[in-house]
């Protein structure tokens, strides 16, 4: 169902947003926010990835099944990292 033609100005707007966010992530990394630095960097990266998935990859116009697939991928990535790090964090060594 991805016959939807996205207007060029949408692509240009997404591109500009991604470039601006890249600049922001570099600028913020030079400011000392303590542990928040990593959180901010990862939040910006997630926002950028979301824009790419929704517009460049047309997920916004895709079927529900595509959303389920994508959700499953992200869910298992979270399980992979969360359970492993939970194990590392809860051991006495």
């Amino acid at each position, binding site marked *: 169902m*991805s*016959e939807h033609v996205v207007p060029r100005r949408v692509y240009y707007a997404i591109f500009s947003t991604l470039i601006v966010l890249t600049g922001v992530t570099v600028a913020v990394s030079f400011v000392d926010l303590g542990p928040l630095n990593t959180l901010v960097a990862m939040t910006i990266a997630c926002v950028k990835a979301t824009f*790419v998935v929704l517009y*460049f990859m047309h997920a916004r116009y895709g079927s529900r099944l*595509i959303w389920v697939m994508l959700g*499953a991928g992200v869910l298992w990535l979270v399980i992979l990292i969360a359970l492993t*790090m939970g194990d590392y964090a809860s051991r006495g060594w």
Partner: protein
Amino acid sequence: MSEAVSRVAHHFDDAAQQKDAATLGMWVFLVTEILFFGGLFLAYVVYRTSFPEAWVEASHELDVTLGGINTAVLILSSLTMALAVQAAQLGRRKGLIVFLALTILLGGTFLGIKAVEYHHKVVEHHVPGASFQFHGANARAVQIFFSIYFAMTGMHALHMVIGVGLLLNLMRQGLAGRFTPAWYTPVEMVGLYWHFVDIVWIFLFPLLYLVGRHG
């Protein structure tokens, strides 16, 4: 019978169903790729939490300017890829070829800059192994950082090389006039792959280049 109809394989009802199947299959592949890179990201997280100071030290050895330029180059290549897919959708053959060529050029630029960075690492003896040299208390953990750096960026670069190969193939088919607004599935599938590789870099850049830069 039009050309588009003749391209529907016998086990599909119609072209739309065939395309949905291709798109779903590509997304399933990309999900396996998320988890493939996920293993590398997991290794990164485990070692970064184990050696936070070494991560800051090692990250300072990378060139933020080159890394930043490469991020911009890759995002621009995602734009030209999206425009190539749009040109295919609208049946603009010349636009398709031009945007594919630009995407290939930008992909090549990214790999060229990456090669310059790798060269710096070789010259500075930052490549893990017998010739590795790093002064300071955290040298061993810094070497682990660079092992992960080369594994992640190397695997990413391999995906880029494969992507450029796929794009060259699309260009050959595009020049032969194989794609029409009714059938341009390969262009769209390669586009999905290319954007995925872009997303991997979007995470690699801050995780590798921007650790503790304020220090």
